[in-house]
């Protein structure tokens, strides 16, 4: 179950010992800088840096690839369609549609930016426990309701997944094979309906359990996140490094 969320079992020391908030801030900064760059060479360089960051964060290359695969399909669509949707110097004519040089450049920019951001997020956020991420978001003063929604989702997504698996196995045990027919669609409808009913019942039981322990609308988080001098130094270095491509991009 845990493999659903966490990419790296053992992140290196420099990552695991830093304050998780540092990683959240760095991820945000990296994303902001990336979307503001437009030079292809600089973007390419940043992508390679993000990749090496991900590998040095202890993410096995095969895991990284698997995660990226789902996303690259979407990127392929961008590469295919964006060149045709921007006017400019034509480089390819397909019937009434023309691909432009400017469009191609834009498409490559989008692909480079998106990959950099996603790989950076995987490296910085994908390597921490989702519960820890929730705690740091709370400490960074994100709205409390969002944080608790996030934490409760993390807590129960596995429980619901197990419930789904049990129902699915019960179907399979009675020789159900999914096909494209009325019976299959109705069975899946029941499966989803059953999951919804059970989730609702569970949520009522959870609320009952909360009330039993005196819940009155207030959640509490206890954590051990401490911002240290080392984190400040790290942040300063990272900001300086990120400023370089940004200045280069405006100068060139």
């Amino acid at each position, binding site marked *: *179950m*845990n493999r659903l969320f966490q990419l790296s079992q053992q992140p290196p020391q420099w990552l695991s010992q830093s304050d998780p908030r540092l990683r959240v801030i760095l991820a945000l900064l990296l994303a902001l800088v990336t979307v503001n760059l437009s030079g292809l060479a600089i973007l390419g360089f940043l992508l390679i840096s993000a990749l090496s960051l991900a590998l040095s964060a202890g993410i096995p290359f095969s895991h990284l690839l698997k995660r990226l695969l789902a996303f690259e399909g979407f990127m392929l669509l961008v590469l295919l369609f964006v060149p045709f949707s921007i006017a400019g110097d034509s480089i390819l004519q397909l019937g009434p549609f023309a691909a432009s040089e400017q469009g191609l450049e834009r498409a490559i920019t989008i692909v480079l930016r998106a990959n950099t951001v996603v790989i950076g997020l995987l490296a910085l956020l994908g390597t921490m*426990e989702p*519960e820890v991420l*929730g*705690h740091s978001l709370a400490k960074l003063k994100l709205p409390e309701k969002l944080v608790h929604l996030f*934490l*409760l989702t*993390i*807590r*129960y997504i*596995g*429980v619901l997944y197990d419930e789904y698996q049990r129902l699915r196995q019960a179907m399979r045990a009675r020789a159900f094979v999914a096909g494209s027919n009325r019976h299959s669609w109705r069975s899946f409808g029941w499966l989803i309906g059953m999951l919804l009913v059970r989730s609702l019942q*569970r949520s009522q*039981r*959870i609320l*009952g*359990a*909360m*009330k*039993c*322990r*005196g*819940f*009155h609308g*207030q959640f*509490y*988080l*206890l954590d*051990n996140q401490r911002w240290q001098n080392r984190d400040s130094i790290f942040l300063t270095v990272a900001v300086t490094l990120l400023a370089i491509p940004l200045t280069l991009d405006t100068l060139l």
Partner: protein
Amino acid sequence: MSPPLIELTDLSFGYPNHPVFSQVNLHLNEGERLALVGGNGSGKSTLLQLIVGLQSATEGSISAFGQACREEKDFRPVRAKVGLLFQDSDDQLFCPSVLEDVAFGPLNLGKTEQQAREIAESTLQRLGLEQFAHRITHKLSGGEKRLVALATVLAMEPQVLLLDEPTNGLDEDAEQRLIALLESLPQAMILVSHDRRLIERLATRAVLMQNNTLVDAVMHSHPHQHTHSHLHIHVAKNEVAHQHDKGVPDHADHHLQD
């Protein structure tokens, strides 16, 4: 003699056209461990939920610690003193980490973060669970979850424990550990269970849900002797050389600690 901790008088519960139970009378005194037994769907779990006001009765009255409880606000103080252990621990453990879960109750009772942390840590230590404090709740095993759920209840220092099938789904080791723990607790308890071993070890009195109402039951055990043949499985080709060293195998050879 002091008044009963919990007293149910002529309590009924049901849905329109489908009564679950009616005219239930029950009292729980200090130091008692009451076993509540009965068939599936007879409303045993519901009865526990009625005591802490998670469901409301159709008729009858509930009084806890000498106070009549009718509506939600009457039940709130009761919930701090009556700890309910849920059948499914996943329902009970909803916080990210074990420590936060155990501290949730004390924090709701108005303790400061520091106090709640200390209470949580000492409760976990008392149950021998201190190494779990910083574990993520959804990664615990079934037995660990049940023990942590018990810790979350005990952290509120309840005077009464309501246990809904506490040994359900636990393996032999986890069950023994839980029973030993429960045995060491001073609280009065109501235990809903089908587990004869649990009832035998813990209960001081029993009531039975039967024919839609609650009747007093007599608990007794009688020693008995029996002989029977039993299945013995071994590798096929050893058949010829096979011999029992002892004339009669030990009872424990083919029975759990029944």
